[in-house]
């Protein structure tokens, strides 16, 4: 049996590449990625790794280094914005797992995020006259913020697994509306509509994340401290999701998405796979919700509405369906774009920064651009930013032979 395989050329997958590739074994080398032949693998393990080329590894390391540097150079405000990017990326990955990978369009993400935020607030928030709170450590409330929504996802899944396509989309939309009603009514937990409550206390292993710390002679603002924590959580969750998608479950997700009857005949349990997708996605949503309200500063029942769900659909559609890196790009886009627009507003004509004058307000411009970009992206590049990135990459790889 062959121990080595050579992947066909990285461009368009159609047609046959060089076959066999048995010669690879003569070259030895334990790990894949021999110099000069980055696509040659000498073991299945190396072939299946996430960072399977030296270029990918170098890029990733450089990126991580830059991300770790940023809070030292950016303002607190921008640091917070980037923290929001990580949180949106976590939520986006969760939605991409169920909608992108498993093909179950969910408009209910906001509901699960809300559940996460309130679970966190119950376990980690402070009790007041009007709301309950246990004041526990983040090491407890953060996992709980994922587990409880996951459990609710598990409960909802049997019904959700029965309905398909756009029926499911609207069913999950129902969750958002019913959830909002429950959030408004469960006053001892949520504070009620128009009032809300303070989020969980970010105290991790006894360290107060809202304080400032000296690190290597630098002073970290509270925004920076929280930034690092969110980044760490994000990295762990992104890698876990990536692992999931290259495992048998990832393939099962895709199979259920593309042809569910055939998948079942292959031995994939539809019920189990959909349930799993729902549960895991809700876990990610819960974590994202719990972290997001820490950036906002308050949990309110009306926050978890259809528009939040739509933001996350935009994350995965603009970023790229069924890719983890796409979810991250999409999150960056959705979070940073409005800010960019407001920075640019001064130079765009007809846009007013003061109310009541000008053709459109900055916010209206942001919203409109957001809507228009969703349309433009889906029309021009159905694979989203990730697809764009692949195109750019292929262009440079083919250089100087590109036309």
């Amino acid at each position, binding site marked *: 049996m062959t121990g080595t395989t050579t992947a066909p050329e990285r461009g368009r997958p159609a047609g046959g590449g060089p076959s066999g590739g048995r010669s690879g074994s003569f070259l030895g080398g334990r790990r894949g990625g021999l110099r000069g032949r980055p696509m040659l693998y000498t073991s299945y393990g190396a072939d299946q790794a996430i960072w399977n080329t030296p270029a990918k590894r170098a890029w990733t390391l450089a990126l991580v280094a830059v991300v770790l540097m940023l809070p030292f150079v950016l303002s607190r405000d921008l640091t917070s914005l980037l923290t929001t990017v990580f949180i949106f990326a976590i939520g986006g990955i969760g939605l991409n797992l169920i*909608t992108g990978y498993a093909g179950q*369009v969910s408009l209910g993400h906001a509901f699960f995020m809300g559940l996460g935020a309130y679970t966190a607030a119950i376990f980690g928030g402070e009790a007041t006259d009007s709301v309950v709170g246990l004041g526990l450590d983040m090491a407890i409330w953060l996992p709980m913020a994922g587990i409880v929504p996951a459990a609710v996802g598990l409960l909802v899944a049997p*019904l959700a697994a*029965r*309905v*398909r*396509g*756009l*029926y499911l*989309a*609207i*069913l999950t*939309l*129902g969750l958002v*509306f*019913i959830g909002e*009603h429950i959030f*408004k*009514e469960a006053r001892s937990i949520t504070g009620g509509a128009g009032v809300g409550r303070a989020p969980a206390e970010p105290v991790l292993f006894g360290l107060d994340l809202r304080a400032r710390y000296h690190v290597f002679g630098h002073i970290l603002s509270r925004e920076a401290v929280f930034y690092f924590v969110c980044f760490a959580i994000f990295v762990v969750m992104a890698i876990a999701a990536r692992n999931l998608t290259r495992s048998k479950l990832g393939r099962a997700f895709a199979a259920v998405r593309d042809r569910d*009857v*055939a998948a079942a*005949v292959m031995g994939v349990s539809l019920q189990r796979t959909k349930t799993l997708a729902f549960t895991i996605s809700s876990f990610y949503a819960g974590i994202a919700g719990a972290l997001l309200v820490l950036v906002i500063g308050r949990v309110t029942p009306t926050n978890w509405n*259809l528009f939040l769900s*739509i933001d996350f*659909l*935009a994350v995965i*559609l603009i970023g790229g*369906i069924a890719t983890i890196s796409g979810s991250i790009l999409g999150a960056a886009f959705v979070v940073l774009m409005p800010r960019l627009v407001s920075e640019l507003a001064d130079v765009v004509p007809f846009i007013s920064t003061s109310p009541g004058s000008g*053709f*459109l307000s900055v916010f*209206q411009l942001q*919203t*409109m651009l*957001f*809507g*228009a*970009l*969703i*349309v433009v992206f*889906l*029309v021009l590049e*159905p694979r989203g930013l990730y697809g764009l990135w692949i195109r750019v990459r292929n262009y440079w790889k083919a250089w100087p032979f590109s036309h």
Partner: protein
Amino acid sequence: MSELISLGLIRGLGIGSTYALLAVGFVIIYRATGVINFAQPALMILGAYVTSVFATSVGIPFPLAVIAAMAVLALVGLATERVALRPMVGKLPFAAAMVTVGVFIVLFVVAHRLIGAQVRTVGDPWGLERMSVFGIGVAQVDVAKIVISMVAIGAVGLFLARSRLGLAMRATSMDQEVALAQGVNVGRMFGLAWAISAALAALAGMLIGTAAGGFDAVLALVALKALPVIIVGGLDSIKGAVYAGLFIGVAEALTRTYQPQYAPWLGANFDVVVPYVIMIVVLVFRPYGLFGTREVERV
């Protein structure tokens, strides 16, 4: 008893028939193009606005204003389809649905900009007037809603079932390529579906905009009620949209009349979620709604 009829049944049928109107718009686009049109709420509120402009600012007679507004919105629908949806033909329905979300966002901003922060009135002749039906006092506007919606839906239904264009539209919805091969101009059918649906939305917008305090742009979100309606009725069934719209309207009205008194523990404004609760219950028993066709699962 009269409360039951005037605040429960008639009000419910009134609002329910506007839901049905909106739902039929959703169904027409869904059947022709396989897409759920999330831009419908924005089209609806633009319809209310245009009616208001014609009837109150321009000052033409109200019925003409309504027809003119429907025509304007039909053009908006046509244009939207041509610009944003046509390129999505043959792509994932979910992606196309997301495009309509993008369109919604854009049109909603436009509606906000046009309507402004102040409230407007559509200039309808009914106001808060009441009339007597079989000795029971009911609001004229409720009767108007029922009659106008049902006439409009009936006309559209007849068109789809009987006319050659109707047949071609249905064919388009089943298989675009084959429809093309029969000489059906598929693009034109898509445009037609959007135009009809937008005109119905405009009509619904006018009816919903008759609220005593006038309307503002955010009232558009009321159109989302049509989503549980089309699920209960079945995404591809016009008949279902009508029955479910009326049923949900009445259920909602009865809930708001009696729930605060008899089941206060369900919380304030429980009627808002009633359509969704009904939808979930229906889906438990019928995953394709009451009248929807089951997707054929043949291998």
